[in-house]
């Protein structure tokens, strides 16, 4: 993967696998937009939270929505994480509220790649830090529908079980790939997937390839 040509959305400015962030990333990291200063004032807002400090990233996103247009009019956040995690959530909040705000439908379709592209790219190894923001936003959208009583519009993010023994889902594999598992061996070290049930391995390897290409470009 190190020698591959990644998609433009994960290219960093120098084009190598270095550590240096783009000016946009730096700007959003040092001058974060829309971060939550007073949670008590947002007790009535819809909120989504993903991640945990143990795994290195945790994000909380609050949104206020105009019920008539279903557009996001305000988006605040808090992030525990590295420079790219903080910058990504900051950029996410800008994208959610600019030009009159995203519709909830559009907010659900926002992909991590869209955020990294706006940031001017991230080093390939830092992509995993930036994928929680859109999940937190989707969780907040669900929360808004829940609070609005439109339960039929709540969309669960359930994964599909790939290995019945370990109950590992395709989402688990996606997260592991983002956390640096780029070989079956590393994937198994993280998830134990397919060790007791090798029958699922072809599918696991297919998902590994799929997510590696999705986030890091073709090998």
């Amino acid at each position, binding site marked *: 993967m190190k020698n591959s040509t990644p998609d433009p959305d994960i290219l960093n400015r120098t084009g190598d696998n270095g550590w240096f962030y783009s000016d946009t990333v730096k700007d959003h*990291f*040092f001058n*974060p937009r829309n*971060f939550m*200063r007073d949670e008590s004032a947002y007790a009535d807002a819809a909120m989504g*939270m993903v991640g945990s*400090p*143990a*795994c*290195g*990233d*945790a*994000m*909380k996103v609050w949104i206020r929505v105009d019920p008539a247009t279903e557009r996001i009019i305000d988006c605040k956040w*808090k*992030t*525990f*994480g*590295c*420079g*790219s*995690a*903080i910058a990504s959530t900051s950029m996410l909040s800008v994208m959610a509220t600019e030009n009159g705000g995203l519709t909830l439908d559009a907010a659900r379709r926002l992909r991590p790649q869209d955020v990294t592209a706006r940031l001017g790219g991230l080093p390939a*190894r*830092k992509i*995993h*830090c930036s994928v929680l923001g859109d999940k937190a936003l989707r969780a907040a959208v669900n929360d808004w529908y829940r609070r609005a009583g439109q339960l039929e519009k709540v969309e669960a993010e359930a994964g599909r079980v790939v290995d019945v023994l370990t109950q590992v889902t395709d989402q688990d594999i996606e997260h592991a790939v983002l*956390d*640096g598992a780029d070989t079956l061996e590393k994937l198994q070290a993280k998830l134990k997937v397919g060790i007791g049930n090798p029958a699922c391995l072809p599918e696991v390897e297919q998902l590994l390839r799929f997510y590696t290409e999705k986030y890091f470009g073709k090998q």
Partner: protein
Amino acid sequence: MQSIYLDHAATTPLDKRVLAAMLPFFTKTFGNPSSFHTPGLRAKEAVAAARKSCATVLNAHADEIVFTSGGTEADNLALLGVIRSATVSLGRMTMRPYSLLSTLSHPHVIASAIEHPAVLEPLAALEKSGAIELTLLPVDKFGRVVPDDLSHALRPETILVSVMYANNEIGTLEPIAEIGRLLLKWRKTHDTPYPYFHSDACQAAGALALDVEKSHVDLLALNGGKIYGPKGVGCLFVRRGLKLEPLMYGGGQERNLRSGTENVPGIVGLATALGLAQAEKERENKRLTVLRDRLIQGLLKIPKTRLNGHPTERLPNNVNVSFMDIEGEAAVLYLDALGIFASTGSACASQTLDPSHVILATGMSYEAAHGSIRFTLGHGTKKTDIDYVLKVMPGIVEKLRHMSPVNLDMKYFR
């Protein structure tokens, strides 16, 4: 803007005196030590003098020093060299006692869980290939190996024990001499030459006494880039009588243990740096310890901050703290923007995207490992630098905590 380099455990600048000693060997005395003419002889003499000088520091014989391309190669040569040599000699052994035969056919290796990757990775590779069985020794909450644990882990087939002199991340000093004596006694009572004792002293070489007769190590690795010497050069002490297989084959330099034309300026630089570091260590350690403790005391005044490693049994230049509820890379970036250069054990800043195995081994949580920051002081560090760090650090921590959705209870982090 300020420029305060506090990452001396990563690497040190070259001492001007070391540079002066090296310079003639780039252009003037540039010969190949293997050449049979005067320029070659001059280079050979320089390498011999450097070898003698390193040996003196280690209280060793000159023929026990093997120059390498750095600490990683020295560690790899020690570990792979011993293990491969045991396997090779197994092929030639028919007359040896059965016990020794069994030792060498099922080799077992013990290493501390907090070793540098230059030790852990070659051992993991050997374990994976089935060449050895590997036991990783746990450490106490300060990061120290407990000699009793080692006693319990020893087996008749243990051929090698590897424990570092001092840890690179948290600075904890390991009880090397005690472990050395324990292993001597074990060999005596079990009437065996094994296990050999290897120690990675790369972090210790600038600050601690390296007398191999007092530490009873059989193999000791150190390098230039951590002691104000050049990068890309190191050496391995190999006790007389100990057999190693080389990693590299070729012209037979370094008593056949490390083929390849000697890095003459580098070797001269390493020897000069080691000599200077050892001669000046007492005064410098005293100075650094005062600065270190000032920094530790000041940082611990920040709420929800914990010291990683041992309060006193630590390298005189090492400060490693965890700030709860924030992530280390973010803090390092903010420090960098203010001209302070430190490092972190956070997963985000590591090649493997896993948090520091050292801090986890001390029993701390993932959260604490993610929030760890290491400041390592050096020759150029002044009291005003420490005070500047102490002035800006609370604000950085506060700002990041302000942005963080996490608020952990300190009772989990004692």
